[in-house]
């Protein structure tokens, strides 16, 4: 059986899987399983080619996807109907915000199954923040407060070469739409209107929200498009804050005794929100090993396995019982993330959701290049968003009407 997955544990992904799969193989010695790691970009493109593979292309059996791709894969006809494969399969214990992303829109047929989720938060180095504020939690509760703290940190560490107040949490080292979402939501804006019939990316609130996030790079508080591992890392002391969806606590605690605290993403407006990103598994309709793939899905959904994997990856279990176990196992985690979880939002499960994210990702990539080259203007960003709105409206008219 072949599992396609994403580099969720960074450079350690292969090792993490090797350790995790040992558990599965112990229980299922007759199910050989091999893992291929692809970036989200590559996986996205492959979602459109696995339907008609060429003779030299590998056919995966099981694939990890972000929660909002399910509708697309159902539409494309590449995802197996899991309810049909196993009528006993249930989502009754799955976390409510993640449930709808497993169904074929408008039905109760399960096409992808939840695995884990992560949620955005702001991590900060306690020792660094102490130097610039007496009450970091209060000062970091608003976006304006965050920018002020960044300015103070910049001044405080002006003699440290390669220092940036904020470590870039994006794997690509660029601007990330997923990190920008809480800023957009905080401004009361969204990607789509409530009835999902129109887009709001051209609205002023959306533009303001995106600009809030971009300001981190524009003000040179966060490095973009630079070599990672050299500049602005919290562990090396060259950064003090990080916006990330990873838990991060154990990593930082384990290294050099660095004390790191986590707070909700500062609110840019009246609504504090956090981006909850679920990861699901789906079975390729062309798979020759559907039963084996289903066995793996069920294995991953077991509470003790959920907790184990969440710890390995520094993410959260997707099912009630496992989440409860996981949260209760650390009072700090419970204290910090209990609050963040109440403000969690997911993306809607519609066919074009992945495309919308790709469009916005491209816009932010262009912004990042412009910032680095010193030619970014708000007008050019606004124009890009206006064009994106037209493109999204067109997609809505084709695929969601």
């Amino acid at each position, binding site marked *: 059986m072949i599992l396609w997955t994403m*580099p969720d544990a960074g*450079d350690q*992904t*292969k090792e993490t899987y090797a350790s995790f799969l040992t558990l599965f193989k112990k229980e299922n010695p007759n199910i050989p399983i091999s893992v291929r*790691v*692809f*970036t*989200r*970009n*590559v996986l*996205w*493109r492959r*979602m*459109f*080619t696995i*339907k*008609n593979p*060429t003779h*030299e292309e590998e056919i995966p059996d099981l694939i990890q996807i972000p929660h909002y791709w399910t509708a*697309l894969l159902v*539409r*494309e*006809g590449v995802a197996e109907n899991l309810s049909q494969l196993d009528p006993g399969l249930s989502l009754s214990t799955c976390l409510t915000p993640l449930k709808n992303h497993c169904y074929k829109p408008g039905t109760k047929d399960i096409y992808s199954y939840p695995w884990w989720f992560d949620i955005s938060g702001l991590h900060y180095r306690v020792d660094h923040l102490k130097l610039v504020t007496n009450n970091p939690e209060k000062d970091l509760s608003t976006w304006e407060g965050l920018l002020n703290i960044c300015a103070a940190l910049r001044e405080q560490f002006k003699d440290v070469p*390669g220092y940036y107040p904020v470590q870039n949490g994006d*794997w*690509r*080292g*660029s601007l990330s739409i997923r990190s920008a979402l809480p800023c957009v939501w905080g401004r009361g804006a969204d990607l789509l209107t409530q009835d999902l019939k129109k887009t709001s990316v051209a609205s002023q609130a959306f533009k303001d929200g995106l600009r809030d996030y971009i300001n981190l790079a524009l003000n040179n508080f966060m490095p*973009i*498009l*630079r*070599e*990672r*591992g*050299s*500049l602005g890392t919290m562990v*090396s002391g060259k950064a003090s804050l990080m916006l990330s969806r990873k838990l991060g606590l154990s990593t930082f605690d384990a290294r050099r005794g660095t004390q790191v605290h986590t707070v909700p993403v500062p609110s840019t407006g009246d609504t504090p929100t956090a981006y909850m990103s679920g990861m699901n598994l789906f079975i390729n309709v062309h798979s020759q090993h559907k039963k084996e793939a289903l066995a793996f899905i069920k294995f991953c959904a077991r509470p003790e396995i959920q907790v184990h994997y969440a710890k390995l990856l520094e993410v959260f279990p997707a099912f009630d019982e496992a989440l409860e176990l996981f949260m209760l196992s650390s009072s700090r985690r419970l204290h910090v993330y209990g609050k963040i979880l109440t403000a969690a939002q997911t993306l809607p499960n519609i*066919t*074009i959701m992945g*495309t919308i994210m*790709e*469009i916005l990702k*491209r816009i932010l*990539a262009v912004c*990042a*290049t412009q910032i*680095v*080259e010193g030619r970014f203007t708000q007008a050019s960003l606004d124009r890009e968003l206006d064009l994106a709105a037209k*493109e999204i409206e*067109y*997609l809505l008219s*084709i*695929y969601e009407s």
Partner: protein
Amino acid sequence: MFDKKSYTLYKFHKQLNQAFQNKRELLESALPVLRNLFKLDRIYFFDWQQERAILSLRMMCKKEYCMDKQEDISVIGESNFLRKLLQEGITETEDLSYPAIYVLLKWQRPSMGLKNGEVYNYMQDKVGVLRLERFNKRRGFTSQEKELIKALGQEISHNLRNTEIDQAKNQRLNVSTALNDLSTVFASSLRLEDGLEIILQGVQKYFRFDRVRLYLTDAYARRIKSALCVDISGQVTRQTQEEIGEQEQSLLKEVFDAEATYRSTRSVIYIPLKVQRSKVGFLAFDNVLSRRRIGYLDFISLQQFASQMALSIDNARLFERVQELSNYDELTRLPVRRYFNEKFAEEMYRAKRFNLTLSLLILDIDFFKQINDNYGHQIGDWALQEVSRIIRTSLRQTDVPCRFGGDEMVIMLPSTNSDESKIIAKRLQDRINAITLPTKYTNGEEIHISISQGIASFPTDASSSEDLLEKADKALYVVKKNGRGHFAAYREVVDQTADYKKE
């Protein structure tokens, strides 16, 4: 015989001397070899993103495995780094806290010095960049190692280029074969609609487009007459002229004005279909959902294919037109007797096989000879056309009318019994009675057209097609004998048919 460098190069060359399916496969083979050779902790492969002046990480190799990774590094602000990398092909990074070098992979080394503003020009030949890392601060890269790494980098570039060329050739070959197969299928399908559906589904499958659409023009090539679309799920939908919005209609002009042009950033292409100067329609291929770019090679192949397709569509349309002409009467636009007989035989067989009813209705225009004699053949033809128009528009999809000869017409009514046939006969009678000859030919006199109709039904009246036709004709004979302008079913007038003679 060999020095160490040459021997290492030879060994490396041998290791890479095999056919790789794609760039990924080659890198998965080459990077671990370099990692072991230079005892590296990590080795990375970056693509040049020329338009953004960015090094875009594609693959990382550590221990014994390779893995996809993503990271973008802008080099536009790094003038020293860039200058050194482009001029010397190798440079050490100043930012990392451990030894790391970047090695440029390119087709040909630039022979002249780097001047301001020429960065992009130089990038055009670049294949990518390797980053080699050792985590131990004391294990820097010696000058001999750097020389060897550069030489091995050249070997990788060479192989990458060959792999890319091979891949492109194979892709082209596969596409040509696929398109050739599709053309054969298309050419052998006599019905245009069937062929088009097969071909569009095939094109979508081979090229893996999100959507493939075909728009066909009307006879005057002024508007889009119909559209066929294969969507992301492979499902085919059809649109008639009425269902096609004005925005889509305006595409016709745009496509033919712009011709087919390729832009690398595009995930949509339109290719006009034309034969000599006539516009047959156009094809639209898009990846707007997946946002994948459409490759130039695909574009070229599709252009060639489109010209074949245009010709085939034109031929198929011509064939359909010829068929139409041979099956339909030119004056009345009703099917001719030969075509009717074929359909009648098929339906009789079906009716017998599945115990279905079937009726036949024979009609002629009352006093048609007098109309011709009194007002001329032109008016006679006009009357025939009007009656035929009413017949064509008053029947169900399954009914088959036919001009049997002169002013005599026959209508086959499948799955219809005698009583149901009478409803149709009454409808025809009422609508035709409402027709008046043009008064300018009748000296202002209002002359209505009327028809007489005879009905016979299977299985009640007859058990064979010949017999059914005869029985309907007998019923018509009785109607005419009794004063015309009416209709009758055979079983109602059977006792009045004794003096019937088949003409």
